[in-house]
C-alpha cells in the first residue's frame, strides 16, 4: 500500500472538488471494498476523501418515493421500517449480502460502487482487462465457475457482486448524483455498465461525481416478493446466482412482475422479457418455468459455469413460486 493523504470534508462541494481536481483521489465511506483493493495493490489512490461526515444518511418518504441517503448503512436500511413495509424485497436482498459485521460498515453508495470479486482482478500477477486494460482476461480460459452468463464480452466476463443492487434494479430505483457539473438522476438499470471493450469502467459516473441518494418509487410489490440467493456456503458467500422476484397479483392473475438476477452479469441483470411474459398470466409453476426459460435465451456459458443456465431457470422458478406463495 502506498502512502496517501486523507481529507474529511464537511460539505458536498468540498468533497466533489477534492476528487474532481485530483486524478488519483477516491471517495471512501465504509471502506469494506476499497481497503481490500488498496492492500492488494489493485487501486493505489494518493488521496482518500472521507465522505462520512456529509449529510447523506437520511431514509425518508418524500411523498410516495422512498429516499435513501447514500451513506445509509446496509444494516440500518435492512431493518428500517419504511423498507420492510414498502420494499421488503430490498430488505431481503440486503440481508443476503456479506455478513452482519460488513453490513454494519457498508453504505448504500459504497455497495453500488464495489468492484467485482473476480480473482483475476485482485491478483496483480495475473492478466485482467478491468484492472489493467489490454492485459487480457484471466477468467476466459481460466477458472470461471463464478462468472457471467449474460452480457459479457471477449474482454471481461466478471460479475457484479452486490445483492442490494439486484433488488434496486428490480424496483426501478433511481440514482441521484452530484458532481462538478451539478446534479443529475440516473435510472438504476443504467447506472452500471456492461463490459464491452471498456471493462475498466463499472458504471456511468463521471470523474468527481458522487452518489448522494437512491430513490425508489411507490409500487405494488409490497407482499409477493422473494430474494433467492444460491451460494456455496449458507452465509458470507457470493451468489452463484441470485433472483429478485416481485409480483403484483390480483384475483389469481399477475398484473405485473419485476425480475432481476445477480451473479450472472457485469451489472444487476433485469429480465425484461420474462417480466413481459408473466404479465396477465396466472401465477402457476408452469408459467413461471416458461418465463424462466425465456430469461435464459440469451445466456452464454464458459467452461466452468455451464451449470448456471439450469440453475438460473430453477432459481427463477423457485423465487417466483416463493414470491407467489407469501
Amino acid at each position, binding site marked *: 500500500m502506498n502512502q496517501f493523504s486523507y481529507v474529511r470534508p464537511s460539505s458536498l462541494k468540498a468533497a466533489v472538488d477534492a476528487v474532481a481536481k485530483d486524478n488519483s483521489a477516491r471517495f471512501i465511506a465504509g471502506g469494506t471494498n476499497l481497503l481490500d483493493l488498496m492492500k492488494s495493490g489493485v487501486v493505489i489512490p494518493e488521496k482518500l476523501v472521507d465522505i462520512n461526515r456529509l449529510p447523506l444518511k437520511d431514509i425518508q418518504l418524500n411523498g410516495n418515493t422512498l429516499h435513501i441517503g447514500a451513506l445509509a448503512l446496509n444494516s440500518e436500511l435492512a431493518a428500517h421500517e419504511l423498507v420492510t413495509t414498502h420494499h421488503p424485497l430490498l430488505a431481503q436482498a440486503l440481508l443476503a449480502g456479506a455478513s452482519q459485521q460488513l453490513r454494519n460498515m457498508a453504505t448504500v453508495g459504497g455497495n453500488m460502487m464495489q468492484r467485482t470479486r473476480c480473482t483475476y482482478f485482485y491478483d496483480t500477477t495475473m492478466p485482467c482487462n478491468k484492472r489493467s486494460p489490454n492485459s487480457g482476461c484471466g477468467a476466459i480460459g481460466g477458472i470461471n*465457475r463464478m462468472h457471467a452468463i449474460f452480457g459479457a464480452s471477449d474482454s471481461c466476463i466478471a460479475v457484479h457482486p452486490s445483492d442490494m443492487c439486484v433488488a434496486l434494479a428490480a424496483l426501478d430505483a433511481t440514482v441521484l448524483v452530484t458532481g462538478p457539473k451539478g446534479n443529475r438522476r440516473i435510472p438504476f438499470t443504467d447506472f452500471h455498465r456492461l463490459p464491452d471493450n471498456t471493462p475498466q469502467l463499472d458504471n456511468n459516473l463521471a470523474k468527481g461525481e458522487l452518489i448522494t441518494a437512491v430513490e425508489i418509487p411507490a409500487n405494488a410489490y409490497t407482499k409477493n416478493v422473494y430474494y433467492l440467493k444460491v451460494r*456455496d456456503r449458507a452465509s458470507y*458467500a457470493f451468489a452463484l446466482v441470485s433472483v429478485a422476484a416481485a409480483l403484483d397479483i390480483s384475483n389469481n392473475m399477475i398484473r405485473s412482475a419485476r425480475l432481476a438476477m445477480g451473479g450472472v452479469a457485469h451489472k444487476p441483470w433485469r429480465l425484461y422479457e420474462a417480466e413481459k411474459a408473466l404479465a396477465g398470466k396466472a401465477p402457476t409453476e408452469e408459467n413461471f418455468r416458461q418465463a424462466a426459460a425465456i430469461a435464459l435465451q440469451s445466456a452464454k456459458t464458459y467452461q466452468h459455469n455451464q451449470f448456471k443456465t439450469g*440453475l438460473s*431457470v430453477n432459481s427463477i422458478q423457485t423465487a417466483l413460486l416463493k414470491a407467489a*406463495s407469501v
Partner: protein
Amino acid sequence: MKKQQTGQSMDRVDGRLKVTGGARYFADHHLPDLLYAALVCSPISSGTIKSINTTKALKAPGVADVVSHLNAPPVPGYKNADPGAKDGLKIFKDNRIYSNGQPVAVVLANTLERAVHAASLVEVQYNQETHYTDMNASMDKAFRNNRMKDYVRGDADAWKKAAVTVDATYTIPLEVHNPMELAGIIAHWDTPDTLVLYAKTQGVKNVQDTVKRLFQLPEQNITVHSRFVGGGFGMALRVWPMEVATILAAKKIRKPVKLVITRDQMFTLVGYRPSAIQKLSLGATSDGKLTGITHEAVAVTSPYEDFTEGIVAMSKFMYACPNVNTRYKLVPLNLSTPVWMRGPGEATGAFALESAIDELSYKLNIDPLQLRILNHADTDPEKDLPFSSKYLKEAYELGAEKIGWTNRKAAPRSMQEDGMLVGYGMSSGTFGAFRGRATVSATLKSDGSLILQSAAADIGPGTATAMVQIAADVTGIAPSKIQFMLGESAYPFAPQQGGSSTVSTLGSAVTDACKALQQKLASLAVSNVPAFKNATPETIVFEDGQLLKAGGQEKITYESLLQQQQLPEVNVVATSQSGEERKKYSMYSFSVHFTKVHVHPQTGVVRIKHIVSVADAGTIVNTKTARSQMIGGVVGGIGMALTEEAILDHRFGRFVNNNYADYHVPVNADTPPTNVYFINKKDPYINPMGSKGMGEIALIGFAAAVSNAVYHATGKRVRDLPITPDKVLDEKAAQQWKVENKLNT
C-alpha cells in the same frame, strides 16, 4: 473421597485468559528493537531467480535490509548440494523455484506497513520453466514410495470375482487448514549462538530440534516459547521454510524479527491436505458378506519431499474381509509440501471406503448400518490381534437411536419435508489410539499447591485443563491448587500435539509423576514424621491431599508435611511411555457419524439439519472440552463435505480463492445442532486413564455421512468433494419432481 475430577465438565483453566485477551499468542510478543518482516514470494511456479534488485526497497522509509539467497547467512545444517535428496526446501540456499508463492526474499523494516510496502518494491527477474500443478494431467509421474508399500491380505483384487461389486472413483480437492491465527515466528539471536523463538507450533521441542539440526547449536542455546496457539489442525506440526528465513534474517541483521504471514500465504507456505484420487472396489456375497476390498490411492506431494499419510490405512482393518489389498502412489507437483490436516489421510480414505460401503448397501438392498454390523471386525484382521477395546457396535446403536434411523425409508429420493428432499446418511471413522513418551516435572509447594510442567502444546483442545483433572484424581489435590504449565522448550520433553495422542501420552506422564511425588512424600513421612515411623512407604494411603497410615488414624496433609520438614517444595520428574501391551493389542478409537440433510430440489443446495456423532474414545477426561473437540471436528467435516476446496489456475500454478471470502470454511449458518455422545468406557490396556484419542475421529468419516445422506435424499451419488450445488443439481429430476405444498413453503 472427594468428587472424581476426570469425567467432569470442568471449565478451561485458561478460558478466562482467552476470552479477556489475556492470553498472549506468538505475535502478541514485542521485543526491543524489533523489526517486522514481509515476504516477497514467487509469482512463477517453476524455474530460477535471474536477479533481485533491492535498490528501491532499501531506499523506502524504515527499511533495514532485504535478505535473500544472495546475502543470507549460511545454514550449516543444509546438506551438501544433492539435487536428488528429497529432504525439504532449503530456503535461501540457491535460486531454484519449486512452487508459486515460494519466498524469495524477506524485507525488514521498523513497522509492518513499511515492510509490506517495501516488499512490493523488490524487483525480481525469473527464468521461467514448465510447471505442473494439474494432478489429472500428471498421473504419468505417479510413483510408489517405500514408506507405503502395496498391501495384500488373501488375494489381491478378489472383489472382481464377487457376486455383488462396487467399483468407483472418489476425489477430494486440495484443502487448506486455515486456522484463524496466521502463521509466523519471532526470532531473536540474543548472542551469536543463542536463539530465542516465539513460535506458532504444535510442539516447542520439535521446533527446538529442527533448529538445532539446521543451525547446529546445542539444544540449551535454543529457547522456544509457545504458550498459546490460535488453532493448528496440523499446519503447525513442522518448522516451515519462511520461519527458517526469518531466523536467517534475524541472524544477519542482529535484531529480533517478527514475521506474520498473510492469509493468501497460508495457502502456499504452511502445508495443506493433498488432493487425492481414490479407486475403491468392493466385492460381497449376495447376503452382504465382504469378500474383497481393493483401495488404490494417488495423492499429491511437492517436488522436494515425499509426503505420505494413512489414506489406505482404514481399508485394511475396518471390516472383516479375507481379501484386502491397497496401493498408494504419489504425484509430485509444483506445489509446496502437504502436511497432516486434521483426521489426516484417514479422513481422505474414509470418504472413499465409507461411501463405497454405502453404495454396496443399495446394490445389496441391505440397510447401510446393518451392512456395517454384518461385516464388523471383532478382532483386527490386519494385525491379527484383539482390539484393546472396541465399542463400535454400541456406537452404531446409540447413533441410530439418536438420529431416528428407523424413520429412514430405504429408497433414495423417497423422503421430503418442508419442500425439501430429505436424506439420512451414516458412516464410521477410526484412527490409531497412540501413546508416546513424555516427561513431566511435578513440584509440590509448601502451601499445598502443585505445579506440573512439560513442553506440551495446546492448540485448542484444552490440554492443561485435562492434565489438571488427571493430577487432581491421582493426588487428591483440588484442581484450583494445581497448575499445568506447557509451551516452553525449557520444560521436560513432550511430543507434538498431533495424532490424537496428547491425553494418552501426557496424561500417563502426569499420572506417573504424581505417583512418584506421592512415593517421595511417603518416604519423607516414614523417615521423619514420628506418627508414621512404623509404616513403610508402600503402605501409606493418599486421600484428599493427605497421607494416611494404613489401618491407623494417623494422617498428615501435604502442606503440613512440607512445613514440618521446613521444605519449600518437593520435586520429582517422571517419564512415561507405553510397554508390552502394544504388542498384544490393536489400539484404535472409533467414531460413528449420522446426518440428516435437506436438499433443495431445484437449486441443489444441501443443508445439514441434524448431526449425531458418537465417539468410542475410552474414558473421557473432560466431557465439556471433549464435546467441543468433537463439534470442532464435525465442523471441519462439514467443510470437507460441502464447502472447502482450494482451486488452482494451472496456467499459472496459482490459487484463485486464497482468502476467507472465497475459500469457504463453514460458518455458523452451515452448522446445525450437533449432538455428541461418548461411549465413555475405559480402555483397559492403553494407559492409566483408559483414554483413547479423539481429535481425528471427530472428522474422519464425516464427509461420507454427508455424501451418503445426499444420495439418499436425491438418488445422485457425488463422489467428488465438496458437494456444491452445481454437483447436486439435476435438472431433469428437478423438473420431474413436484414440490408438495409448494405454496406453503
